[in-house]
């Protein structure tokens, strides 16, 4: 007698499910619990809202949340627009486009943490490349990472550099599936390039854009590697991001309980994004 399909199905699912529960669902539950029961690295017997009370008093948090949202709100659209442009270029009849594709994609495979040191050189005042270039045109330059009004944007630039090429691949894949007859039809209509893009290419890339958008948003909340090298969230938290702040609280301040509260905040943000994603998936079904 063969095992029932039901049991077989569960057996196949089991290993993945166990690990997912152990490293995704269980920690989520425990984080929420710790946010109520935790004190420093310890557990208390009774639940309290003390950690959440500190959340309200935490002056840094507001800044960190603002930074995180700005970070997402700017890096995501810019990366996507660049990614579309790159995909169009690489998909066109340009010569040596293979080289170009490699160039665009290279940042994706470079570790953020090593390359951050090189970006540190670009950004460094006095001796850094950017200010030296500015000096050529007689400009005194900026303190890219040391000026609170610039530091976050400097981080964003590196993030965009890192992400755009990765998203390009998705668009490239999507572009190749577009029926060329549509372009022939447009050519017969004598449509301009811009019209073709706006009326044909862009709408057909919409499902990809939605998919990339959600992924980029999620990425924006977890991409903090370069902070470890470039700014450590400074000066004065002007470039601090939520996940880095969680890391600081947990591993520099040994305040696991407050880190748990911050994680809950991040989870709430992600749940909202998740709902967005379900909406997106539903939309995608209509496209298919």
């Amino acid at each position, binding site marked *: 007698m063969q095992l029932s399909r039901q049991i077989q199905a569960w057996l196949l699912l089991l290993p993945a*499910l166990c690990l997912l529960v152990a490293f995704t669902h269980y920690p989520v539950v425990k984080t929420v619990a710790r946010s109520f029961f935790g004190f420093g690295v310890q557990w208390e017997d009774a639940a309290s809202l003390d950690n959440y009370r500190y959340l309200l008093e935490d002056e840094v948090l507001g800044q960190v949340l603002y930074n995180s949202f700005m970070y997402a709100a700017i890096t995501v659209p810019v990366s996507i627009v660049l990614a579309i442009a790159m995909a169009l270029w690489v998909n066109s009849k340009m010569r040596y486009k293979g080289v170009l594709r490699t160039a665009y994609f290279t940042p994706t495979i470079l570790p953020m943490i090593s390359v951050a040191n090189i970006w540190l050189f670009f950004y460094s005042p006095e001796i850094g490349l950017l200010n030296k270039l500015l000096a050529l045109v007689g400009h005194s330059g900026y303190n890219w990472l040391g000026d609170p009004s610039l530091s976050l944007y400097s981080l964003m630039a590196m993030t965009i550099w890192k992400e755009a090429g990765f998203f390009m691949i998705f668009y490239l894949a999507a572009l190749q599936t577009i029926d060329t007859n549509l372009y022939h039809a447009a050519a017969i209509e004598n449509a301009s390039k811009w019209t073709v893009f706006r009326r044909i290419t862009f709408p057909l890339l919409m499902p990809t854009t939605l998919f990339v958008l959600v992924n980029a948003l*999620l990425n924006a909340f977890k991409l903090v590697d370069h902070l470890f*090298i470039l700014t450590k969230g400074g000066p004065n938290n002007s470039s601090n991001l939520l996940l880095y702040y969680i890391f600081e609280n947990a591993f520099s301040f040994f305040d696991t309980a407050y880190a748990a509260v911050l994680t809950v905040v991040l989870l709430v943000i992600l749940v909202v994004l998740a709902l967005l994603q379900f909406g997106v998936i539903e939309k995608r079904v209509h496209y298919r």
Partner: protein
Amino acid sequence: MNRITHYLSTGLAWFIGFIWLFPLIYAVWAAIHPSEFATRFSLFAPLTLDNFKEAWNQAPFPRYMINTIAITMIILAGQLVLCTLAAYALARMQFKGRGFMFALILMQLMVVPEILIVENYQTLAGLSLIDTYWGVALPYLASAFGIFLLRQTFKTVPEDLENAARIEGCSLLGIIWKVYVPLAKPTYLAFSLVSISYHWNNFLWPLVVTNTENSRPLTVGMSIFGAPESGVDWSIISAGTLISVGPLLILFLIFQRQFVQSFMQAGIK
């Protein structure tokens, strides 16, 4: 008019391409010249390999490299096996609670392990897996992204192929291995490359969970080695960076065509 926009567009494309490649170009420049030329450009700067030697001596790169390769491979192998099994169950088997299980798995797409470093660290400490390959790998072995991707691909495999294999006497695992896996090859390739480049470069979680050279991967090694606290020496850092990304870079340059193509075939879009 049209021609001008064409040239402008081409020019912009190459300009951005240059900027995108520039950090790597700079790293090569800084690495092969003495450190006084790290912040200065001169055509006649003397060439040297000392920076590589110095970097090599300052950090145990071979060990880091072995760690990174081992971790990346453990994760990849685990992901491929676990995700294949789960994806098949979700794509082709009828069982109670399938929809719910799928939703439960998809949760991980949003709640990535990076966010749960604190609790996962505690769990692994409880299992005495801190500072081991498995400690770095475990939270990533079951990848919702992989399961999702493979499930979509498996659903496109004609059911008759599976039926034929069953009639020819294949077991359940035999069917998965002989029918579904070969047919999903592009998806596996695309997923593998994404996974490898992700975990080769992953930093935050390994930083938290590794303590020593026993398990410390290249990224964490590089962050210690190149930490600004110790005073930045770009020449040596660049050399170290090149050493650490070299293998991946070469792998990418060799496979980039297949990589992009498999992405397209896999329908990741």
